[in-house]
């Protein structure tokens, strides 16, 4: 799709099935929204499982929630929220055709994403050391051991799949940054940046819901 020409490219021609670039841009953005609807249901299955666990074993979930690393979780939330800001800012820069700002903001967004993953990895490391990884090295005794195991099973699935989404997002953003640097975008054409932004914000929204479900469960308890 992109040619690696070093100088700014004028508005490219639409693909043959589209009459205008506007039509193509609308289709791309609408397509991403439909894809996000799919993603909602993809996470929805796991969230239903979480709801079932929490409803049937409230005490166990509360105790499991107190095992989670709330500091890392909260910092990570802040990181993702901020990355959403830089992403929205980047789209704004693209709208106004500011190439340097766009490139830098995309880079910052990707770096924030990497920071998120780094913190997440550190957190996983801690959980491994505490024998909280179900199926691999889970060791917990006490009355709620089984619920804690299931909680961590869902925790690793939810955050793992979210992490995969973050990774995909970082790759997309990096590609956009490179393309922006090469001048592939202009005030008249920045659909890929916009669509990538939608995806990134969605990943942020998923985390906004995971955060209280995982890290804040049972915090008000003993």
């Amino acid at each position, binding site marked *: 799709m992109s040619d690696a020409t070093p100088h700014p490219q004028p508005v490219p021609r639409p693909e043959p*099935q589209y009459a205008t670039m506007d039509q193509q841009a609308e289709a791309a953005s609408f397509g991403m929204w439909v894809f996000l609807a799919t993603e909602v249901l993809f996470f*929805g299955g796991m969230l239903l499982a979480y709801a*079932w666990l929490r409803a049937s074993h409230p005490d166990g979930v509360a105790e499991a929630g107190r095992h989670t690393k709330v500091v890392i979780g909260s910092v990570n939330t802040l990181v993702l929220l901020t990355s959403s800001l830089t992403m929205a800012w980047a789209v704004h820069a693209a709208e106004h055709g500011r190439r340097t700002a766009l490139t830098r903001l995309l880079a910052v967004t990707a770096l924030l994403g990497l920071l998120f993953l780094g913190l997440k990895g550190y957190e996983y490391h801690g959980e491994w050391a505490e024998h909280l990884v179900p199926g691999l090295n889970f060791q917990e005794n006490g009355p709620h051991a089984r619920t804690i195991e299931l909680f961590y099973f869902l925790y690793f699935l939810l955050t793992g799949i979210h992490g995969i989404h973050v990774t995909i997002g970082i790759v997309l953003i990096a590609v956009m940054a490179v393309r922006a640097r090469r001048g592939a975008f202009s005030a008249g054409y920045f659909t890929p940046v916009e669509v990538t932004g939608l995806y990134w914000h969605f990943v942020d929204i998923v985390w906004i819901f995971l955060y209280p479900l995982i890290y804040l469960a049972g915090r008000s308890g003993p």
Partner: protein
Amino acid sequence: MTTATVTGKPEEPVVATKNYLTEEGTTLRSWLLTRDHKRIAILYTLSLTVFFFVGGAAATLIRLNLVTPAGIFTPDIYNRLFTLHGIVMVWFFLIPSIPNTMGNFLIPLMIGAKDLAFPRLNLLSWYLYMGAGFLALFAILIGGVDTGWTFYTPFSSLYSNGYVVLALAAVFAVGFSSILTGLNFIVTTHRLRAPGMTWYRLPVFVWSNYATSVIMVLATPVLAITLLLVAVERLLRVGIFDPALGGDPLLFQHLFWFYSHPAVYIMILPGFGVISEIVPCFARKPLFGYKFVVWSSIAISVIGFFVWAHHMFVAGISLYAGLVFSLLSYVIAVPSAIKVFNWTATLHKGWISFDAPMLYALGFIGLFTIGGLTGLFVANLAFDVHVTDTYFVVAHFHYIMVGGMVSAYFGGLHYWWPKVTGRLYPEWWARIAALLIFFGFNLTFFPQFILGYLGMERRYYAYPPEFQAWNIFSSAGASVLAVGYVLPFFYLGWSLFRGKRAGSNPWAATGLEWKTPSPPPTHNFDRTPTVTRPPYQYRPEPEPQDV
């Protein structure tokens, strides 16, 4: 644009020199890297045919085994056979059948577009399908899977000895193929309609595929995540679906049927679309109650999500949930009934001819009506307590999926064959095949209703001797049905090389797809058409009727 003249002897129509089959080149590479929706449709059709015969072979062996009460195969082989039959037929034939072949080919043509909105995604979707298909076949070849297509836990997660994880991975991947197709159709229908092609001028086929796509996009991800959870549970021995691990097996069933019941409508809705194209064409009349047919499709795709737990009436759901889901199941029967009545009313005061596509369509209406009416039986709370998991249910869903959907698939295949290939098939062979399929089907599956009420359970490789007589009927019918399904393979294949040239519109049908040459050029239309009329403006033949 060439139009076949009706005067005197039909002359051999001129083949369009530029068409999608030759324009991009004829190398394998040009096919495997194509972005043309029509070529991708052909790729899908070829691969689906392979899977149809794989699944059909398994079905044949199943019926063979059930000729004697003691069974012919070992139980392990039989269990793998019906699992193979279910997985291949559901995910590798029925779900992609009409959308990915005819839908891919026709939606852009019908709405006057040059291609789907995302041609690359479309190709990716085919590669995902093929990858998943090879994975599934691989799982079968190295030892098979014995869970049934439903993968119920804890059997699938902890007890089964088959290659369950491979099969789960295959279904997971094919699910994403399905999601991408649905996404593509939705965006295409919204964004690429030709000027003047308003929503109420869309052919019902496009509407039905749109409704199907909504289900594909919104239900499939739930299946994907559920199967992922089962796979992890099986690999790591920790999970939320097994009571021995603290989980709830009914949670799996809820999540599974949240997809798999709407999936039934993924399978049948496109069939409704095909029938709604064929019936007006061969009755030479506008479709009766167009808006009702359209909105009943949308209603089915939405309400289809509200009824899933009717698969679980004896599984241990609460009484209250049973009451709710049964009522909703009766509600969804209404839009299906509306369609049947509308097709029947379309025949009223028409000029009906009985070409092969019409025979398939009439067969579809008959078989779907029986399938739909027996749906009232199994949606009934109390009655379901007696027949769940028996051959009554087996017969019911085969009437819908095989009697209905496969008939529609063959009907559509014949109807659009001239458009796709530029050739006509031998009409009489096609009529014989249509009749064989109709009668063979009834002989195969009607006895299964009786068997089910008698109490023959599904997935039994051996059964009490008093059930044998009806089973022999069923197996005999299956052999007729098999002939009916193999026959088109030969005469359609023959017609590719020897069939008469079709011309752009052999059925004198309305619809944009008939306004471009057969086979169509790569970008479908030389000039983007402008639409000024509603669909199905059929005029009677031979003499025009003035109202």
